[in-house]
């Protein structure tokens, strides 16, 4: 086994007869940024908690970078654990001291400012959720963890915070192995080298981000018509343009998954229904959500 690999083999976790992780096997390269994508309840948080040693597992094997020794790890959840009666500076100083690392007051101050907070006497209990998440992210800047596990790190953060998070991840690149669990495909696409999509604890697809780009950059056209589509009509819509990845029909409404949207595609879809004399009641365009992908092409993989 390579020293440069975090290896997960046949990992299974069952809680009260519910299979949370089902024979999951992954290989994560050292100092890479790895995304774990899934809808709520897909098992991504459990996977991260198991890797952090916070949750047990029934069967399988985890080898941390070959030697099996638990590495210096930072686990940051969507509701990060912080000490409410400390200030941001005190908290980061405590983490630095706890991990026997060296970071002087200026480094801590700089980390606080980097994540968009102020180095003042305000206790953490007075912080909003987004501010707490920012502070938890700052923890990775003042220590040097070998493995960083982010569970929905930007769930409660505003747009500016997301930009900050991407820049922090870029700063940590090549220093730590970073695993980010999220349902936000687009955000992960900006940061990760590689990603796995899991559903009901099973690996659906694992690949380089570039290869998954088709999924990450998806757009959906939702159309409601006067009657449900028939099978040959679905196939006909699929064949209208090479950028159409899949068509899913639920009753009178159906979704067309696209790699990218163009007027040409939209026009050809509308023309098709006009020619078939099927009236369109409603039409809308949105970014592809994970749910769209699961009900679309990924479900077929």
């Amino acid at each position, binding site marked *: 086994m390579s020293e440069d690999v975090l290896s997960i083999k046949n990992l299974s976790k069952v*809680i009260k007869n519910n299979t949370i992780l089902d024979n999951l096997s992954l290989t994560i390269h050292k100092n890479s940024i790895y995304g774990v994508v899934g809808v709520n309840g897909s098992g991504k948080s459990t996977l991260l*908690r198991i890797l*952090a*040693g*916070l*949750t*047990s597992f029934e069967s399988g094997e985890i080898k941390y970078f070959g030697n099996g020794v*638990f590495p*210096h*790890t*930072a*686990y940051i*959840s969507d*509701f*990060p*654990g*912080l*000490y*409410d*009666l*400390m200030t941001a500076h005190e908290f980061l100083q*405590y*983490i630095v*001291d*706890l*991990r026997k690392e060296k970071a002087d007051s200026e480094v801590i101050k700089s980390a606080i400012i980097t994540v968009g907070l102020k180095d003042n006497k305000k206790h953490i209990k007075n912080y909003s959720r987004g501010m707490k998440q920012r502070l938890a992210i700052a923890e990775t800047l003042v220590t040097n963890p070998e493995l960083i596990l982010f569970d929905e790190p930007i769930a409660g953060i505003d747009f500016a915070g997301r930009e900050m998070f991407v820049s922090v991840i870029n700063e940590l690149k090549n220093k730590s192995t970073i695993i980010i669990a999220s349902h936000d495909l687009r955000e992960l696409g900006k940061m990760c080298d590689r990603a796995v999509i899991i559903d009901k604890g099973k690996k659906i697809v694992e690949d380089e981000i570039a290869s998954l780009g088709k999924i990450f950059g998806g757009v959906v056209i939702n159309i409601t018509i006067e009657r449900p589509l028939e099978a040959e009509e679905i196939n006909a819509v699929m064949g209208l343009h090479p950028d159409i990845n899949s068509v899913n029909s639920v009753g009178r409404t159906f979704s067309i998954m696209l790699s990218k949207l163009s007027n040409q595609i939209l026009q050809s879809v509308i023309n098709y229904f006009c020619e078939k004399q099927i009236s369109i009641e409603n039409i809308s365009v949105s970014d592809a959500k994970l749910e769209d992908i699961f009900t679309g092409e990924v479900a077929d993989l």
Partner: protein
Amino acid sequence: MITMLKKELRELWRSKKTIVTFIILAVLAMTSIIMSKFEPQILNALLEARGTELPESFIEYLSTPPGVSQAAANFFGNISNIMIWVIILTTATAVNSEYINGTYSLYLNTKKSEFVITKFAARIIINFGAILLAAAFALLYIAVLFESAVLPGFAQSLIILCVYAAFTTAYSLLFSAVFKTVLKSIGISILFCIVLQMFSSFPVIGGYLPGGFAPHISAFLSGANSTGYIAYLVITVALTALCLVFATIGIKKYRV
């Protein structure tokens, strides 16, 4: 470990647990001695006001001036009763609150034994400090009200009380490591304390169990020698250490 200990002490201070513990025990020490001194007068005044006919023995009790050893016994009796509640309430949430708040994930690379020992040590420092302050207040009030500075057996009694406080801290910590909810850990700690008191009333073996500290204190305060005093201390210290070992194991297994 020093880093964690300093953080624990700071948390206890900022959450006002330290100051509350100190104030409760100090006030209790003062009132115990004051009540001992003036109890006959207070009772006499109350009974006279009600016009109650008093039996001979009770009149004799009321006319006997209260002694120093009686005041000290009152102090130890009251402090031990209240101290248990204070310790359980401040300690039985020490570990599981870290799980609930998510801060336990900060200790992924910390030895579990160090985590338990620092929590124990911080609470011992606070509890012993509060007991010693209370004892100082008790001695001061005894000196002022009873004009007596020498108290036989006071130091030995204080040692017994501190060892019992350490044991109470240890089992409260154990239950906070084993049970996931605050309500469960506090409830089981209280239940355990009651069971402990029941076992301590058993003849012969009761005096060697952690809850059986009262006869040893009574013996020392009356100037007699307490048989089994050393055995009591050894057993209680050993059980305290055992609780800490089990708390460490409890944390290791405390994974969902």
